[in-house]
C-alpha cells in the first residue's frame, strides 16, 4: 500500500480545485434547470479524500487493482445530484440535462428482480466543460475529464442516502438479525410504494409534470 500516502497527498492537493469546480457545475446545472419548480435541490460535492483512496486501491475479484490511473480514471471525484418531487419529473429533468450537457453514459440503476426493492437512481456521466474548469484543474493533465450526476425523487433519496451510515454495500449483508433484514426490505418497498403513490396522487390532482422554463427556441 505504498501508493496510499501519495494518492492521498495528490488528491488533497486538487481538493480546493474540485470544490471550485463543484460550485461552477452547481451554477451550470441550476441554470440548465431554470424554471423546473419540482426540483427540491441541486448539489455537487468533491469526493472525500479517504473515500477516494479506498476506491483507488480497490481490487477486482481476481485481486488486480480496479484502476491503474485512479487520479484520472475515477469519475465521481466530482459528482452532483438533483432531487425532484415526483417520479414523473425524472424524465423531463433528465432530458433537459441530457440536451444541455450531452451524456456519455445514462443508466437507470434499479433492482433487477421483480420482487426486489432497493436503490434506484438515474445515473449520468458528462464531460466537464473546459470553460467551467478552475485553473488548477485545467492545467493538471491528471484530473478526470468527466463528472457524475444522479437524478432521484425525494423517496428514492430517502431510501438511498442513509445507506452509507448503515454500512450498506451492494451484495454485502450487514444485518446481524433476520428481523433487521426484513425491516430494511420493508423500508425499501415502502419508499418505492410511497414514491409511486405520491406521483399518482399528484397526477390525479392535476399537478402538471415539470417541464421547466424554455429559454430555447
Amino acid at each position: 500500500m505504498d501508493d496510499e500516502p501519495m494518492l492521498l497527498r495528490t488528491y488533497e492537493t486538487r481538493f480546493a480545485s474540485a470544490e471550485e469546480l463543484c460550485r461552477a457545475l452547481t451554477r451550470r446545472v441550476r441554470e440548465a434547470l431554470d424554471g423546473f419548480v419540482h426540483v427540491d435541490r441541486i448539489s455537487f460535492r468533491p469526493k472525500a479524500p479517504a473515500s477516494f483512496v479506498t476506491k483507488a486501491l480497490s481490487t477486482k475479484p481476481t485481486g488486480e487493482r480496479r484502476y491503474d490511473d485512479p487520479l484520472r480514471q475515477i469519475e465521481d471525484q466530482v459528482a452532483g445530484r438533483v432531487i425532484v418531487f415526483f417520479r414523473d419529473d425524472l424524465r423531463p429533468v433528465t432530458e433537459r440535462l441530457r440536451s444541455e450537457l450531452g451524456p456519455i453514459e445514462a443508466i437507470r440503476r434499479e433492482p433487477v428482480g421483480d420482487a426486489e426493492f432497493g436503490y434506484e437512481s438515474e445515473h449520468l456521466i458528462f464531460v466537464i466543460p473546459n470553460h467551467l474548469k478552475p485553473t488548477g484543474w485545467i492545467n493538471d493533465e491528471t484530473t478526470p475529464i468527466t463528472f457524475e450526476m444522479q437524478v432521484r425523487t425525494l423517496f428514492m433519496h430517502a431510501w438511498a442516502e442513509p445507506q452509507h451510515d448503515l454500512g450498506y454495500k451492494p451484495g454485502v449483508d450487514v444485518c446481524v438479525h433476520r428481523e433487521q433484514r426484513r425491516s430494511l426490505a420493508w423500508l425499501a418497498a415502502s419508499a418505492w410504494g410511497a414514491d409511486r403513490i405520491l406521483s399518482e396522487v399528484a397526477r390525479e390532482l392535476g399537478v402538471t409534470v415539470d417541464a421547466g422554463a424554455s429559454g430555447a427556441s
Partner: protein
Amino acid sequence: MPLGRLERAYAYEVAPRQEAGFVGGPAHLSDRLSATLDTTYAQSGLERATAVDFVIANPESGSRENPVRSALLATAFGTAEAASEAAVGLAARFGWATDLRSKPSLFIATVHAGANSNRKQVVLWTFPQQEVFRLRTDGADATIDVLEVFIRDSPLRKAAMFTGGAGPSDFLTGRALDAQSGSTDRSVADLWIVKFLDSRLQMSSDEGTRLLAQSLRHAHDKLEANPDAQAEVQAAIIRLRNTKARRVTLAQIAAQFSRPVAAAFRTQQVNTEALTAAFELNKVLFDALVEYRIYKLGNGVWVSAPFGTLGRDVTEEQTADGKRLIATGIVETERVRSKHG
C-alpha cells in the same frame, strides 16, 4: 501543448461525396513533414480552438461508442493495418460529410506521442484544393502554368485534435477549428464539427447566450460613468440581434470593443476557455435577457431603452390611440445631424 513526436501519418485526396477509391495512404515520416505539421499547428491556433465533445448516440449502453472516436482510437493505438483502415474510414466519412459545392481536399490524420507512453495526440486536417499559378522561365520566354494544389494556410482549412490514452475516459473530448462554423448556411456551419466529427460544442446555446447577456450587462453597469463605453455595449447588442452568424464566441465580440469595455466584458467568464468556446446564439433568449428595446414613435422620435430601464425610466401606457411611451432622464449628450439616418 506542442505536438509530440510524429509517429504515424495518413494522407488522402478526398472529393465531395467520395466513398471509396481514395488516392493516398500512410505517409512517409520525414523531418520536413514533421516540421511543416508543427508550424501549421502552431500557426493554426488549434491548441486554443473551440472545445467539442463526441456525441454518444446510445449512452444507455455504457459503451461510449462514437464512430469517429473509435476510428481515432484505432488510428492511434491499433496495429498498423487497423490504423490504416481507420484512417481510410475517416477519409470516407469526410467525403460523405462534404457536399458537391466543395472542392477536393487533402485529408491528413497524424498521430503524435503524448505526455507519456500511454497517451497519444491525433490531429485531423483538411486542406482545400485551389488553383495557383506557376511561372516558368526559359531565357526570355515565360510560361504560366495553372496548377491545382492543396493550400496549407487556406482560411477554409479545418482541423481537430484529440488527446488521451486508450481507456473509457479518453478521447471523449477535443478541439475543433473551422472558420466556416459561423456560416449562415447550416450545412456549411455543421459540416466539420457536427456532421464529420459527430460532435457537439461544449458550450450549449442557452448557456453561451446567458453568459453573453450577463457579460454585456455587467460591462454596461460597470461603465455607468462612461456613456461612450456604454454606447459600445448598446451597439454590440444591436449587432448581435441582427447578426446572421450561426455561431459566435465571446472572444469575437470582445474583439470589437475598446480596451476598457473588453476588460469589463471579460470579468464574467470563469477562464479563457469561455472566451473561445463557440455557441449558437439563441436570439429569443438573448432578447429576453438583455431587455433591450428600440421604439419608433409616430412623431418620428426613436427611443432605445437598454438594460433595466424598462418599467423604470421608460414606461409604456395603453391609451385609446395605442401604446404611449414615456421616457424620462437627464440628457447627457445630444447630437445634431444634418441628414436623418
